[in-house]
């Protein structure tokens, strides 16, 4: 009993933050967002159907990889989790949304440990965890049963064990990160690209810092996951989603634009056309255009992204007041004199921040997409936490900025709360628009 009490007391701030995150994500979960969207209800129904009848609605016993909705291959673990939830909470809206809200709330734990183990300061961990707790981007998706939010819990937990391994070299951490990464393959498609890229980056960073132990494990992991992704990409269910959403798809319009440019060049200009209007340049330009959007102020702070099902009117993905600690983080990271072991982890995490939007940038449907790029929330929380910590440590006028930032978060937290309320007012309008969209499609 004493042990439990001591544990609770020593981790009291983190437990409080997790509870706070859970309350924010689960308060009125059944009715806010107002209605279940089509995918939510379909996956919830299919999940319960399988668990009840031991086969899916087409008669396939216990689907292992996917559920096929006419060529749209849904990954099965979120479906099972939603189905399971209906046996606990009943057949209602709350049950379908509960798994993502719970995993969204629990995601603050790995974010805390990534920050704590990177900077060796618990306070930075608490700040980062608190930032994720109040982040509009993360809250909105957690409440909308988004698979990306479930995935980010497993991905960031795997990342937490990687950081743990880089610092302490315990093999158990490597094994745990492997387990959490592999679960991501059964949650959300982009992780089938993000995870091999993460391990490739880890290999490169380990090589640069001459960390042989991490290098050998990272390379092994990279090869295993690349082969796994390679296998999946050869199956029709594996490439189905990518071929639908990818910028390489004819529907993206890139190939048409390339053709237009070639025709515009005029007849008998084959060499010029090959030099200036080839596929590498065309698709590369589209990729860079998409990639840059994910770091734009309009996307992050003003408008947010798609799909409509996840958009909160007049609300960006981050608060404007995040700008203060993020700038502070950039300045203090650039000026910081970190030990070599810490440099290695930081270098890895900073590069990873720029790497995680790559899969999202390769798609065009519903782009820029806030779910496909949701991994960025981990890094924004981490860096904002570090920036705020540095401001709080300053003695002179910089401390004033710290208080301004804190006041900004409280104010914006309130405004975001109002924003959620606003969706009650705005939603009818957006539904009318959606309705028109459907009518046009019919």
């Amino acid at each position, binding site marked *: 009993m004493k042990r439990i009490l001591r544990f609770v007391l020593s981790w009291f701030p983190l437990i409080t933050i997790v509870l706070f995150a859970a309350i924010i994500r689960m308060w009125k979960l059944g009715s806010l967002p107002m209605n*279940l969207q089509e995918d939510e209800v379909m996956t*919830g129904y299919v999940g319960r159907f399988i668990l009840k009848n031991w086969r899916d*609605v087409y*008669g396939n016993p216990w689907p292992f990889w996917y559920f*096929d909705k006419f060529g749209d291959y849904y990954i099965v673990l979120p479906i099972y989790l939603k189905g399971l939830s209906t046996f606990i909470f009943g057949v209602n809206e709350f049950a379908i949304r509960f798994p993502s809200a719970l995993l969204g709330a629990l995601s603050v734990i790995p974010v805390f440990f990534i920050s704590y183990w990177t900077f060796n300061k618990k306070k930075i961990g608490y700040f980062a965890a608190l930032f994720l707790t109040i982040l509009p981007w993360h809250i909105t998706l957690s409440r909308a049963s988004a698979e990306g939010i479930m995935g980010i819990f497993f991905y960031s937990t795997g990342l937490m064990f990687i950081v743990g391994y880089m610092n302490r070299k315990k093999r158990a951490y490597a094994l745990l990160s492997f387990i959490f990464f592999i679960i991501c393959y059964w949650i959300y498609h982009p992780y089938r690209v993000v995870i091999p890229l993460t391990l490739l980056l880890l290999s490169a960073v380990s090589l640069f810092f001459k960390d042989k132990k991490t290098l050998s494990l990272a390379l092994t992991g990279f090869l295993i996951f690349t082969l796994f992704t390679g296998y999946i990409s050869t199956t029709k269910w594996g490439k189905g989603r990518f071929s639908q959403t990818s910028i390489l798809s004819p529907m993206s319009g890139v190939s048409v634009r390339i053709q237009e440019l070639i025709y515009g060049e005029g007849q008998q200009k084959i060499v010029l056309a090959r030099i200036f209007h080839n596929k590498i340049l065309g698709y590369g330009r589209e990729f860079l255009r998409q990639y840059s959007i994910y770091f734009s102020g309009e996307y992050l702070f003003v408008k947010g992204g798609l799909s409509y099902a996840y958009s909160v009117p007049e609300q960006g993905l981050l608060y404007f007041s995040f700008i203060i600690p993020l700038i502070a983080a950039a300045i203090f990271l650039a000026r910081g004199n970190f030990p070599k072991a810490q440099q290695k982890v930081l270098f890895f995490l900073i590069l990873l921040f720029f790497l995680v939007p790559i899969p999202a940038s390769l798609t065009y449907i519903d782009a820029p997409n806030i779910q496909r790029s949701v991994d960025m929330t981990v890094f924004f929380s981490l860096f904002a936490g570090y920036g705020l910590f540095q401001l709080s440590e300053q003695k002179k006028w910089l401390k004033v900025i710290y208080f301004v930032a804190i006041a900004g978060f409280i104010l914006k937290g309130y405004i975001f709360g109002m924003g959620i309320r606003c969706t009650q007012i705005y*939603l009818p309008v957006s539904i009318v628009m959606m309705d028109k969209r459907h*009518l046009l499609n019919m």
Partner: protein
Amino acid sequence: MKKNKDNYDKVFLPTYGTMSMYYLYFTNDFDPSYIGQIKYDVRLDQSHNVYFVDSGCTSDKISPNDMKKNILIINKNNCSTDAVNFKQIDDIWGANKLLDFKVLIPNKDLGATKKVTE
């Protein structure tokens, strides 16, 4: 719908996409007999006496034979209701007050015969 569907021979609901899943989920209907009936785009044509019509304006799709029966039709709000053949008996309001659904029955006095003869 749950309460009243048994009072009618057939009930026609507007649908697109996987809308029938909403009905099955909220009526807690996970009957294994749907295996084979649910199509590969997760659509269902019929659940007992409830028919899912692939149109927002369900009343446009009712056959002359069904018009003679004791049927209930749900139309989306943006459908122009044929006031001769159908009689609106109620509205269904969801959370969104702008989008009601119109609850119709055939107008047996005049309209139904007219439509059948056409």
